[in-house]
């Protein structure tokens, strides 16, 4: 697959780049952001996949989250794909903000007219890693997944559905039936997150399921924080450090 570099900016000693390619899963052109730390110039680095939330593109995370500093320090490549296929001209895809464009939910659609293009789960778990491993100095044995909001959910299901791949589609259900190598999950939740207060987020269920199955989770309820990228920015360092513990071991 041919990769075209869209942009490159030096940042924290490494490079924040954006590439475009033709996706075979999603049958359209897809962009992704990739941060290459200074260590990547001399050797292979582990890869941290970041899955963004509803309405985001590959740009939001790389411009707003401030992850480059920690990635540079720990020597980790950060790949941030887009949140859904673009320009497929499927009817109804732009009607709502939380369905269709920008709302891939990191699942593979099973129904028409979506099932041809909306295969974000396969894209993120198979096509993208293959692409990254063959075009960049990435260590194929070391990858981890994380995300915010819809992406957080995506990260959980990717990990739970692929035991051992990363140091369902409903994370809670998946957790309830997970059996595989030990995970170590870190979740931060803003207490003032409006989705939490409107019960769209149900962390207690996940916690109960994980407690039941003895899946190690540390869930932190952060006083005063909301759902925005300011929240992401505040805790991204802790998360990269958490991942680095396993990626750099």
């Amino acid at each position, binding site marked *: 697959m041919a990769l075209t570099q869209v942009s490159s900016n030096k940042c924290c000693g490494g490079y924040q780049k954006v590439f475009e390619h033709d996706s075979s899963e999603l049958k359209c052109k897809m962009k992704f952001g990739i941060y290459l730390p200074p260590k990547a110039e001399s050797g292979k680095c582990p890869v941290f996949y970041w899955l963004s939330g509803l309405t985001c593109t590959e740009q939001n995370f790389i411009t707003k989250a401030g992850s480059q500093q920690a990635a540079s320090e720990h020597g980790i490549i950060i790949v941030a794909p887009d949140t859904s296929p673009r320009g497929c001209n499927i009817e109804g895809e732009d009607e709502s903000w939380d369905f269709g464009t920008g709302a891939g939910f990191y699942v593979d659609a099973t129904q028409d007219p979506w099932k041809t293009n909306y295969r974000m789960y396969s894209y993120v778990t198979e096509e993208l890693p293959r692409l990254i491993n063959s075009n960049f100095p990435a260590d194929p044995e070391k990858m981890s997944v994380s995300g915010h909001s819809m992406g957080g959910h995506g990260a959980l299901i990717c990990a739970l559905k692929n035991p051992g791949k990363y140091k369902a589609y409903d994370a809670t259900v998946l957790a309830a039936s997970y059996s595989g190598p030990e995970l170590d999950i870190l979740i931060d939740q803003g207490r003032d997150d409006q989705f939490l207060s409107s019960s769209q987020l149900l962390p207690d269920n996940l*916690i109960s399921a994980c*407690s039941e199955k*003895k899946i*190690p*989770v*540390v869930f*932190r309820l952060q006083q005063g924080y909301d759902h925005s990228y300011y929240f992401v920015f505040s805790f991204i360092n802790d998360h990269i450090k*958490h991942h680095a*513990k396993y990626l750099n071991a």
Partner: protein
Amino acid sequence: MDVYGLRGPLQAIAEEMAVSEEEEAEGDEEAFVVVRKRPVTSDPAASSDMYCSDCGTPAHSGQHTHHRVVPLPDAVQDMKAELGKSHSRLTEKISQMENFASNLEEIFITVEENFGRQEQNLEQHYSDVLQTLAQRNSENSTSLQDQKKQKLEALYGQLLACGSLLDTGKELIENAQELHRCTNRNAFLQAVMPVIKRIENFAKEEVELKVGVSMEFTTPPVDLTGVKQMMESINVVPAPSAPVMNPQVVNSATTSSLRVCWSLFSDDTVDFYQLYCRQISEDITIEMEQDVSVRRVKETHCVVKDLLPNAQYEFWVTATNTTGISPTSERAVYMTVPSPPIIRPQECLSCLEAALVRWDSGNTNPVESYTLELSEADTHSSVTESIVAIPTCECLVQLQPWKRYVIHIRAVNIGGASERSPPITISTTGTFFPLLKETAHPSLSVSPDGFTMFYLDEDLPISEMVFSDSNFSSCVAVLGDLIPIRGQHYWEVEVDEWAEYRVGVAYEDTQRTSYLGANATSWCMRHIRTPSRHKYEFLHNGWSADVRITVQPLQIGVFLDYERGILSFYNAHLHQHLHTFTCCFHHYVLPCFALDKPGALTLQTGLTTPKYITHP
């Protein structure tokens, strides 16, 4: 004979010998030359090159056929050898003479000195005797003078008395005569009777006609025994003068013996010394003086044995010879070396960069200071570092990480240093600390090994609990004795599944009446158990972060980093990070442990901080 004069001739002989040596050396050359020259003159007679040893002359003719004849060079060699022997014999004699001469010199000087002293002695004695005699003389003459004065006074008194009597008598007689001549009969008759009366009375008076004072002079007996004694003692060797005690020499004492020395600063003859010894008791309640022991010693030093360690002894000495005993010397105090200290391993603390060693003095009385000796255990080098002048029974010593050290302590006083204490081995691979049992709440008991804490089911009634200033009174808690070093420290706590506990750190002066985490002087992780779930709090100043943990940690790793101001908690089995407090520790903190309900906690110290924490 003048000894000095003898040296001159001896010197001259020596010089002559040296000169003759030189001459001989020159002679050698000449002889050599002569030998070489010989062939040139080529005497046809071969025998002219020969020398007859028997006759001692060159052998020109055949006279010497039966004599021992040797070639001339050989003869010369023989002669030289003989000359050499005589030469060395003479040199030996000369050196003997020189030794003898210097010996004589010394004796000469010594004799001069000794006689000089004897002269002085004699002079002194005689002048003493004379002084005494003069004194006696003046005493006696004074007494005679007094006697004389007394007698003269008495006589004079008598004289006066007689004189007055005479005067009175004369007066009466004149009166009577006058009266006798009186022509007036009436007046005569009037006056005559009293006058007659007076004369009669006067005549009746007894007159002492004896001399009241004896004419003899009593000379007091002259007591010259003292003088006699003095005269006799002139010929006798004087009693010695008082010796002088030497101060204690460094490193001459052991825990049970002292080497006591003294000196005599005069050349008095001494037959033996008597050394007196008395222990000085530090205990002021002992009123009685300790017993004095005496030893008879021939030399000017003595090793006194069977003494107590770290004790002071008073010594004084007298010198005795046939004449008598010298006055006693001044007293000197010597001290035995202390007993070695005993290290208390259960109270020693350590971390990667330092150790705090504590010990018992090992002596009932105080010592001056302690010395700590430190060497690496695994290397074969005998390099030992010493820290001296430690005033108390503990010492904080800086160490290198990842090594094993052997430490000994010695006690030091003015007598010297004790033997080494039994050692303690310290490994600088992690932080090691014991619990401070005196801070424990009365309901918190500690296992005999000192690392498991129990809160047993039965609460003691409050009346039976003993509270002090240092122990916790509400929270069933205890503190740990962490070494005061601002580095990184790590320890683990093993917890029961059902235990409700608080583990963390607190300032040493954290309020003992309050609960851990409820105030600004403590930080802790708290576990609360409800029938349905586990609840975790991370408490400081009464406030907690909201954290849910799905897998109950049964082994909690606590990591403290003063530099970065962080206190972190981990599930040590899963290497899972639970929570981190970021705080600026103004003072040193101590680990703290508490049980809110009956249960048990076990502390593990001395562990190396796992890599996932130091190198994430």
